């Protein structure tokens, strides 16, 4: 099965900062697709995550404004307090609609909107977390023909989120945390040719 990947979406909650550092740290600066990430955070905690992640990866990390074009080689980090969505013209779209799974940003909201836009070209990844946000979204990515991946729960700081994703029956691949970055990179380059 050869499948051209056009975007990667990743969701994490509890333990996400360390997980993101280790996953994004393995991605090269010239990754030919955009990466969009949701990390659950408290709305009053400030918007420092993009700056922290920027020190951990060779990719260009962006704290996007709304309508910002989504471009290859960049990591887009959802700000606290907003749902981050992908719009049909491949720009960032924000919403203050009610929290989903008690979360805003919600992983499901990103995954549903990205699944709609990128269809079979989307790679969705669920990392560590202590709730089941992302399970519905990863199911939709699978329904749209995309590729789905979860962190192996034994390597997760909180296993609820990857377990909930795996329990949907819609996960194609399960990998240890330290392998995920490399696998993403291989999928994007190897199958994208």
């Amino acid at each position, binding site marked *: 099965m050869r499948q051209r990947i056009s975007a990667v979406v990743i969701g994490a909650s509890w333990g996400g900062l360390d997980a993101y550092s280790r996953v994004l740290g393995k991605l090269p600066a010239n990754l030919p697709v955009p990466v969009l990430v949701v990390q659950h955070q408290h709305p009053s905690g400030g918007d420092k995550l993009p700056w922290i992640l920027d020190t951990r990866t060779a990719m260009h990390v962006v704290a*996007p*404004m*709304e*309508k*910002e074009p989504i471009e290859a080689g960049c990591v887009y980090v959802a*700000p606290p307090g*907003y*749902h981050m*969505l*992908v*719009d*049909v*013209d491949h*720009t960032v*779209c*924000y*919403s*203050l*609609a*009610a929290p989903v799974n008690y979360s805003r940003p919600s992983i499901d*909201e990103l995954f*549903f*909107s990205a699944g*709609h*836009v990128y*269809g079979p070209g989307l790679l969705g990844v669920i990392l560590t977390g202590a709730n089941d946000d992302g399970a519905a979204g990863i*199911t*939709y990515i*699978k*329904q*749209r*023909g995309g590729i789905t991946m979860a962190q192996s729960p034994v390597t997760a700081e909180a296993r609820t989120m990857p377990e909930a994703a795996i329990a949907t*029956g*819609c996960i194609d691949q399960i990998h240890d945390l330290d392998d995920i970055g490399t696998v993403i990179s291989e999928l994007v380059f190897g199958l994208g040719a």
Partner: protein
Amino acid sequence: MKMPESVTDEQVSIEDIEIRLLLEAIYQLYGYDFRCYSKASLRRRVLHRLGMSGMPSIMAMTERVLRDQQFFVTLLNDLTVNVTEMFRDPEFYRAFREEVIPVLKTFPFIKIWHAGCATGEEIYSMAIMLEEEGLYDRAMLYATDIDKNVLAAAKKGIYSYAAVKQYSENYRRAGGKTSLADYYTAKYDGVIMDQRLKRNIVFADHDLATDQVFGEMNVIVCRNVLIYFDRDLQQRVFRLFRDSLDMGGYLCLGTKESLRFSACEEHFEPVVADMRIFRKRQLMKRETR
């Protein structure tokens, strides 16, 4: 385990057509124009209401919207996303107090327009700040929204006690001079805002998508409204704001909203860039298009 059925590109485009028909029905029957709203978030909210309603399709929902006004009111509330807080983004209010208020103090009279005021939390925040700075009595505040139901709520100024507890913390971080409790009266499990705060506020319905220039304003506050609009509608609204502002007038946007991707950027200059406070500037002749 049974795999869920696939959702093909064709099904997705049919959904898109259904959404367009729904919006057309709403526009033709009720006059609310959502056709230029940002596609991604509109789609999420329509599908969210569809899931909650238990109806089989967006077409079925359209049918119901055409026959059942109460259902439309529910959907309208979903589509307009009336999420707001008092002193939301306290750093913005602090910056406004420090950088804009001193300039406003030199004006004999001040007109402020809150476009998309929803349930009114931010207009009361502005009213409180103007009171504390001794400016309220020479200010006129215009609070507008597309949705008459939320305007009615804004006029009442009644909020839940749990919410107000969080607003108190915002107020403090925004540089409030006393205690937020000085501006409301607790009643049962809610609070009612000091009715004197309304003496110079005019509440009016106004649709940024279809209505015209509102008057010569010194300040326009429109925060987290433009995020729901597509690029063309944003362009219209930026022009409307430009034409409604006095020269040097202030435009305050939400923290994630930008003039950068619009053709109006040249008409404004940043005052406090990271808090999205801009000023209308005089264009040199060679700059005008």
